[in-house]
């Protein structure tokens, strides 16, 4: 038999014994019921006394010892003590775990701030407090964008696209750069990760300056070489045998000039931040200009079409947009045979503006597509050198698009042709000035 059941039998036995004793005493005194009532009253008093001791102990259990009661009462007290002990054990373990967790997040080399759905600060670790100059406890409950007011960060929060971190320069602090990344989780809660990227930014600046300076320094000697080669090429006194090599040298010098020009443009694009605002660019006019450029090439595809499906204009930096589009169109013209065709298309929809260049050229093997925008990346080394590209065209396109919040999509089938599409966000679209007037008067 189980000890608990045994105890219950014992308790029932005790009650029965009390009843029997009461009945016996009543029989002896001649009044059965009075005896029974007295016995039950005594029993009830005993039960109440136990109940009182139990309740008193529960109230003062933190410092009082459990009362020593027998029977089922003792068992109940033992159970409570056990429950209490187990709870305390779990609580201690939990507190320990919590403390460990807090200690590890506090020791993180990166700052962590927890924000609620209203972007109010719920918690932050020591590093975040140091990097963002937050005050512990006093700043809890304040909105993060009230304390972290850098315009770049506010734009980042407003855009709600947290796929990339944003780098800001805090007002206080010389040459400090902070990288901020928001990670949404749970019910609209946000985790803000902060790290000090001053060192990386400085290294990056050194690298950029080096490329820019090196390209600049290379340009002047190259100009001299090109100049002499040009004079030599027209010199009638020269042996006709060397004319071939001189022409080749001139071509290569020209290519080098082109590469340096592209490198300089790339480093200029890298130096400045995103293009904010900008001027409206008339895409239709730009495309018809690019079409003329293609047709002016000595060898060009037979058919060059321009399709304008939208009257909307693109707001951005005009020279940059021109450079990006012309690089894409140039590529298409270069890799499309004379009997092929090129189509340039501009259209807008709910997702924004799109510019696509589709050709019926050689196509690009799928494994090369993800790496196309890397600098000097070549799908087919022999062929692209022969066509005289710098290897930087698509890198320039990528940078220009990034600076305009746009992205490049490449689709290609080997042997059938390729299609390069630029997707611009809706806020980059602008209604032409004339059209705006007509809608207002209408």
């Amino acid at each position, binding site marked *: 038999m189980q000890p608990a059941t045994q105890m219950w039998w014992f308790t029932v036995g005790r009650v029965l014994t009390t009843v029997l004793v009461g009945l016996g005493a009543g029989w002896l005194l001649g009044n059965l019921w009075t005896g029974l009532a007295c016995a039950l009253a005594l029993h009830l008093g005993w039960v109440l006394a136990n109940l009182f001791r139990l309740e008193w102990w529960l109230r003062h259990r933190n410092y009082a010892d459990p009362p020593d009661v027998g029977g089922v009462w003792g068992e109940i007290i033992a159970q409570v003590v056990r429950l209490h002990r187990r709870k305390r054990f779990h609580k201690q373990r939990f507190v320990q775990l919590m403390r460990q967790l807090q200690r590890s997040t506090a020791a993180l080399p990166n700052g962590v701030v927890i924000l609620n759905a209203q972007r109010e600060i719920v918690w932050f670790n020591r590093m975040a407090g140091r990097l963002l100059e937050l*005050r512990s406890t*006093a*700043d809890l*409950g*304040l*909105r993060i*964008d*009230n*304390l972290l*007011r*850098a*315009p770049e960060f*506010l734009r980042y929060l407003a855009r709600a696209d947290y796929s990339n971190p944003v780098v800001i*320069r805090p*007002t*206080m602090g010389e040459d400090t750069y902070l990288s901020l990344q928001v990670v949404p989780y749970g019910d609209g809660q946000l985790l803000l990760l902060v790290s000090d990227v001053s060192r990386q930014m400085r290294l990056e600046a050194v690298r950029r300056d080096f490329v820019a300076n090196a390209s600049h320094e290379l340009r002047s000697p190259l100009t001299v070489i090109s100049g002499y080669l040009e004079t030599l090429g027209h010199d009638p006194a020269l042996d006709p045998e060397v004319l071939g090599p001189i022409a080749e040298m001139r071509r290569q010098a020209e290519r080098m000039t082109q590469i340096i020009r592209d490198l300089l443009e790339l480093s200029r694009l890298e130096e400045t931040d995103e293009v904010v605002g900008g001027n409206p660019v008339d895409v239709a006019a730009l495309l018809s200009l690019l079409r003329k450029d293609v047709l002016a090439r000595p060898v060009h595809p037979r058919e060059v079409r321009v399709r304008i499906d939208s009257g909307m204009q693109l707001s951005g930096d005009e020279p940059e947009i021109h450079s990006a589009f012309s690089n894409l169109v140039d590529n298409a013209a270069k890799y499309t045979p004379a009997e092929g065709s090129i189509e340039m298309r501009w259209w807008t929809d709910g997702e924004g503006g799109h510019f696509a260049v589709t050709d019926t050229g050689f196509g690009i093997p799928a494994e090369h597509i993800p790496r196309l925008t890397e600098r000097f990346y070549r799908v087919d080394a022999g062929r692209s050198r022969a066509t005289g590209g710098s290897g930087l065209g698509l890198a320039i396109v990528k940078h220009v698009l990034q600076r305009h919040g746009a992205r490049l999509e490449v689709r290609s089938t080997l042997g059938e042709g390729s299609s390069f599409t630029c997707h611009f966000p809706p806020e980059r679209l602008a209604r032409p000035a004339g059209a705006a007037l007509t809608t207002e008067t209408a």
Partner: protein
Amino acid sequence: METADLSHHISRRFNEDLERVRSKVLGMGGFVEQQLQKAITALVEGDSSLGEAVAMDDYQVNNMEVSIDDECSRILATRAPAAGDLRVIVAIIKTITDLERIGDEAEKSGYIASRLATMERPADKYREIKHLGRVVSEMVHDALDAFARMDVDSALRVARQDRLVDEEYEAIQRQSITFMMEDPRTIRRALDVMWVVRALERIGDHAKNISEYVIYMVHGKDIRHTSLDDVERELRAGSGTAGVVP
């Protein structure tokens, strides 16, 4: 805290409106801070395109001021706020005026910096201006922080710092006069530089004003044109009864 009071509103929408306007003010402040920073960098590093960019971007500050002003008028008209809320709105309207002025001074400095970039740079590379610029932008930053945190102590600290800026201004002015007397060819440049120094000094005054609005917003006390020591004594003594509505 006052922020706790804000959340006890009968109308949650009103509360949200107030908070949004406050955030917009601080966002405008962040932009102005950056403009100021850029203008100083443009002058110290002789970056003419950065200086031009500052001058070009000032219209954004003006747009923000107009938009916040509109929103404040709308709140005043539709919600008819009283007591602490009314003080918040009044303080906001005053703060954005000062922020806009700071923006104007930064614009002017940026414009002058882009012009100075083409001239010969002095031997000290504008070290004094760099220092003054740092003190002033710290004041603007701290004043806005005090605004965000409703922190009277920091606000008082900012207000006190204005005296330091004034002293520095005097010192640079004396130095410039010496330079001009030594070599009259530098007069043109020195005059331009004085414009920037003057602008920085004015920005310090505006930062002081903003911190005074913070004290007004929290305690309902107008401390303009009173000595700071008196203000502090009064705030310490009457912290229990503070919050008298004008």
